[in-house]
């Protein structure tokens, strides 16, 4: 596992930051971001933007703006034999359930082989992100309400890891050097995850945030899930 990895640095891997607005579709946005990133990595930065609205409208319950799970998005993708483009099936982000319009446009721009859940182990998760690409995670979002920038250091008291309620895309990791309190003390480093949120680019660090790594902060290891766009082949290289 490398010391750092940041898929934002590889052009074309990550789509622009989305804004879910009043639609509780973080699960669909995270899944779409995962598929887009893996597709771009597999096809060497030939980027696609898939339809989040298709995931919202075409799930089993057809009311994706009231909430959902990442694995439901992947099941919908498998059932629909892929996803159409964002351009062909644009995001409306309203609460009213719409009829699934996936069949109207048959031109799928990305599809998946299956999806997997990774181990509850932050080292294994880092290794996977560095060698395969971004994954989805579901965290407790309590501390995000007032977040502006920097590395969130959560505790079990202010961010219960057993209660997770917000899905995001994990796009990398690194370490932040912290100045020592006195010249005699060595500088400390805080390891962190880099996560892509779906609340617009004006929120957080241009739409991203960082969360302390190695302590199961906010329950980040509870549901580490990723699609697979191909059979496992040789590892890819994440920009440090």
């Amino acid at each position, binding site marked *: 596992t490398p010391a750092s990895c940041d898929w934002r640095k590889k052009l074309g891997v990550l789509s622009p930051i989305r804004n879910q607005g009043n639609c509780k579709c973080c699960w669909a946005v995270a899944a779409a971001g995962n598929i887009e990133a893996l597709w771009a990595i597999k096809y060497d930065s030939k980027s696609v933007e898939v339809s989040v609205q298709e995931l919202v409208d075409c799930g089993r319950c057809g009311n994706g703006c009231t909430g959902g799970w990442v694995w439901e998005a992947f099941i919908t993708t498998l059932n629909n034999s892929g996803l159409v483009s964002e351009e062909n099936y644009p995001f409306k982000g309203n609460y009213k359930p719409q009829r699934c319009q996936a069949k109207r446009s048959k031109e799928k721009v990305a599809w998946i082989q299956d999806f997997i859940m990774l181990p509850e182990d932050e080292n294994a998760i880092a290794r996977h992100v560095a060698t395969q690409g971004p994954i989805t995670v579901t965290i407790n979002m309590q501390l995000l*309400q*007032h977040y*502006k920038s920097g590395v969130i250091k959560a505790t079990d008291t202010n961010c219960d890891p057993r209660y997770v*309620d917000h*899905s995001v895309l994990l796009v990398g990791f690194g370490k932040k050097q912290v100045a020592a309190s006195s010249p005699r003390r060595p500088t400390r480093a805080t390891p962190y995850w880099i996560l892509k949120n779906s609340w617009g680019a004006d929120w957080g660090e241009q739409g991203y945030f960082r969360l302390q790594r190695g302590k199961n902060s906010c329950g980040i290891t509870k549901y580490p899930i990723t699609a697979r766009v191909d059979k496992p082949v040789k590892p890819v290289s994440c920009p440090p």
Partner: protein
Amino acid sequence: GSFRSQDSGPQPLELKEVFRLFQIQYNRTYSDPAEYARRLDIFAHNLAQAQRLQEQHEGAAQFGVTPFSDLTEEEFGQLHQRAAGGAPNMSRKVWSQERGQS
């Protein structure tokens, strides 16, 4: 009370002025004076909470006014929570590719 703006130097800004700037930045209007007063109260509570988080983090992260500063914790949860009722219980199966068994 009054709050010191992080960006505009040493002059303390009254809470209402900070709230007015928040309303302008995030295009917020409230239906009546009672609702305005309620949101101002929530905003003050949230600024205090952000300040506590800021202190706990000792400079590692910054917390403050965000688009969600006029919402209670419950409202914020209802706005973005992906599903009600918490997470389902799931068991993990470890797949061995070598032996083809779960």
